[in-house]
């Protein structure tokens, strides 16, 4: 497992992992559990009719450490952002920041897909 100390440290904490009982405003999912890699991005908007910023962003994931830490870092960065940020994740930048092995880029792309779907879910909910 060619992970840096930083990745190992983040993996040991995963501060942005969702709790099983969490019910978000919107949820986006990518990957397949049957293939051993799936991730969900869960988002809550600030209550009280504010500017709609993401008050809380969490993840659920089944997969390798690269997937878990990429999701954790993405959630950390998304908190406090406008919802459009969910569609603006830069997977190459995440991959580089975490100094993940090159073969793990696909896992970071899953995080990007899940975040985009989360935004779609959020907008669909608001359109209803």
């Amino acid at each position: 497992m060619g992970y840096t100390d930083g990745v190992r440290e983040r993996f040991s904490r995963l501060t942005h992992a969702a709790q099983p009982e969490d019910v978000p405003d919107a949820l986006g999912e990518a990957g397949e559990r049957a293939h051993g890699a799936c991730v969900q991005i869960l988002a809550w908007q600030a209550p009280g009719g504010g500017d709609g910023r993401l008050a809380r962003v969490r993840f659920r994931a089944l997969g390798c450490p690269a997937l878990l830490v990429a999701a954790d870092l993405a959630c950390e960065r998304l908190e406090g952002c406008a919802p459009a940020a969910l569609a603006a994740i830069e997977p190459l930048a995440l991959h580089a920041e975490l100094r993940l092995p090159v073969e793990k880029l696909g896992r970071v792309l899953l995080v990007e897909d899940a975040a985009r779907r989360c935004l779609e879910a959020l907008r669909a909910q608001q359109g209803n």
Partner: protein
Amino acid sequence: MNEATPIYLDHAATTPLAAEVVAAMHAVLADPALCANPSSVGHVAGRRAAARIARARAQIAGVVGASADQVVFTSGATESDNLAVLGVARGSAWRGRHVVSSKTEHRAVLDALDRLEREGFSVTRLDPGPLGRIEVDALADALREDTVLVSLMHVNNETGAVNEIAALGEVCRRAGVPLHVDAAQSVGKLPIDLQSLSVDLLSINAHKVNGPKGVGALVLTPAARRRIEPLLFGGGQEEGLRPGTLATHQVVGMAEALVLAEQRREREYGRLQALRLAFWEALAAAGGAWCNSPLDEHGSPWILNVSFDGVAGESLRLALEGIAVSGGSACNSASGEGSYVLRSLGRSDLLAEAALRFSFGRETDESLLARAAVEVLSALRRLRRIAPAAGDPPTVHIAGASG
């Protein structure tokens, strides 16, 4: 993260030196009278070293029911495997060019077989049966007129499944084909008596039973000796079969370790069998646990291989940095390949990838395994809580059981 003192449960990879072995090796290293080349029998110092080697050779032979002149020292079981497979096949090529082995052998055998194929040999690689063992009938069916060697491991290094080498050897003996057995995971742990077994070549080492790395032996019958060719040349040591200056302290350490292991073998077998069962029961409490090792007499008490539902193997291993444990076998871990052995047991790729091989040794006790179980259960709980919800609730599965 616990970088400090991990709980060591990787004894199938290697073991710490026993204090008695350290003392025996130190006694040789520190004794100027034993510094000479044991091949230099023209002077008294060389003869002293040679005598120490001879004593160790006899001790090692005694552990496996052989005579001292059957023991050829090597650098370890990998070299012994190479010497047996390549040496016998090449030395018997005038009789035939077919070798039988299994798909679940150690890479020291599998890669040697690949080499033989490139040299024009034909190789039959048997599939393991249920529980990962090679079935006697499958071996009998695979033998041909031109078969010159059968090579099978005694104990599977991933699951601990024990091959019936007595019955497999009888099949080979009836067919007049020499049997090579890789006993790296069994010597000093299971009874091996070459006087009663139809085994012609036996690869052994000591570092799985608290002996030194870097030394091993190939124990072979006179008939096998007549068929085998050396891989190395120059010097004439080990009757020309494995030239090179013997390291007296290594050989002495190997003998000490094997003698100690043999003395403790029956007691350790019973003790570890009980500990292994208790450890499995503790792990099974997590639910979604699959035991990939035979838990009865068909499995080595030194190895417990377990897969877990609902987690990715790589994450589980990283979450268990406080435990020195192997994912499948060490060689599979290095290559990143899924375990063929576990898939042959019917495990999915995901379960095979999520397998942990816990392996036990002399230092393993109840309190250590209790700590390890707590760490594993804690890591499983944490990773499963993070995972998206699955369907069915976790259950427990045991190798060989239906379903």
